[in-house]
């Protein structure tokens, strides 16, 4: 009976949190569409999210392309379909693996970073200090960060995809003597707008989710330094879960428009 009660309490807490997150998102849209705008802080956050994630995204993308090609090669060779490698890799990376993997990497770096930063600002009363000085901390801290992740993630994903394809091209060049020019010709022949557009659109939602959950967890942080750790940790967990849900919905919708 006690166990049942615990489970029902957890379910209740989960739904309460979903409700609070929805209100938080609603407040974001309200505050984002009203003056004054914090352009300077937005640019600073874009730099933090974008520029400081470049190396991580580049390394991840490169290894992703490299490993994916190495692992797929034997199977394709078995069926005599190794010439399809550039098409298969490019479609897989651009449509699905690139956006999801890079978004997950950014969830780990950016969302947890935002959760920890805002969480520590909350417990050390820095957010209260902003509020009592007549500034709107939600606009300054939350709106700018969510907008920065929403704008920067698509760019990071495009960059990561390009690096992943480059990694794949290196494997093909070394193992199959395929020139870079031939490899990328096949890549661009295989890719269509129906591959690129849905992936780009969903990457904006990925960015929004990363910023939203990170700021939500950090801004509402409680229980001192323990709470900061929890905020940072749960920001990653919730964001990762949300990314898969968004991905599922995006694939479902794009299948309606572009599916066969």
């Amino acid at each position, binding site marked *: 009976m006690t166990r049942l009660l615990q489970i029902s309490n957890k379910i209740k807490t989960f739904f309460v949190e979903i409700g609070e997150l929805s209100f938080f998102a609603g407040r974001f849209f309200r505050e984002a569409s009203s003056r004054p705008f914090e352009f300077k802080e937005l640019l600073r956050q874009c730099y933090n999210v974008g520029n400081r994630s470049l190396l991580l995204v580049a390394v991840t993308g490169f290894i992703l392309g490299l490993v994916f090609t190495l692992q797929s090669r034997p199977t394709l060779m078995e069926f005599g379909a190794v010439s399809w490698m550039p098409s298969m890799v490019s479609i897989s990376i651009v449509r699905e693996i690139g956006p999801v993997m890079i978004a997950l990497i950014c969830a780990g770096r950016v969302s947890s970073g935002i959760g920890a930063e805002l969480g520590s600002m909350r417990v050390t009363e*820095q957010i*209260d*200090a902003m*509020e009592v*000085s*007549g*500034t709107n901390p939600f606009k300054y801290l939350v709106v700018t960060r969510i907008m920065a992740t929403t704008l920067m993630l698509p760019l990071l994903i495009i960059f990561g995809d390009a690096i992943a394809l480059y990694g794949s091209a290196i494997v093909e060049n070394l193992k199959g003597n395929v020139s870079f020019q031939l490899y990328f010709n096949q890549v661009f022949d295989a890719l269509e707008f129906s591959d690129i557009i849905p992936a780009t659109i969903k990457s904006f939602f990925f960015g929004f989710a990363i910023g939203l959950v990170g700021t939500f967890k950090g801004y509402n942080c409680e229980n001192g330094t323990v709470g900061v750790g929890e905020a940072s940790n749960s920001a990653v967990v919730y964001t990762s879960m949300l990314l898969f849900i968004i991905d599922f919905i995006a694939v479902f919708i794009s299948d309606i428009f572009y599916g066969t």
Partner: protein
Amino acid sequence: MENTKEIEPILKIEELRKSFGENHVLNGFNMELHEGENLVIMGKSGSGKSVMIKCLVGLMMHDSGIIEIMGKDITKLTQKELNNLRTKIGFLFQGSALYDSMTVRENLEFPLRKQNKTFKETKTLVSDALESVGLSDAIDLMPAELSGGMKRRVALARALILQPKIIIYDEPTTGLDPITAKEIIHLMEDIQQKYGTSSLIITHDIDCARVISDRMILLIDGVNYAQGTFKEISSSTDKKIQEFFK
């Protein structure tokens, strides 16, 4: 302090109540702060002092009661009006609450961002505020590079930057060594004399209360248990009051 009763208070709290579930923190707290006055509020940890000042500046919603600042009931203000009123109140937080990612200069410039000040005016206000706390040299340092006492001074400079009419001090000497604590107390006195601000000081520090208070209130069980001058309260024979001065 007899004459202050005739003047309209700059800050007034009537029958303030605040509960967290079954925990009744404030049970009808009353208070008046007059212009140019230093009012000290003392109470044990958990007696509701911090809750009271958070309600005062709108960081927390009270359950019932009236809070009037400069004649305005804060519950009837719009967010914009409340923000405007907040610019007339300086707040020194217990842990200083300096913005970690900003330099001392940026910390001080932050409250001025929406005040339509020119670059020159901002620069003058920042240097004046830092000078009044004796930290002009620290302008380009990060908060992590400052000692506890320096942080408290910078936080005080930030609280002063908008030239407020009221300054609220939340445990201004907590966590500081006795010498630095004395320096902060003298600084508070200097500021009060220089700017003519009214001060509301929340503290446990008997020395701080003795030196700085014109009047003090003892907050016990969510109500003002005793009020008067430091001398009147410290000489009381009441057991609960005496516990504070042991």
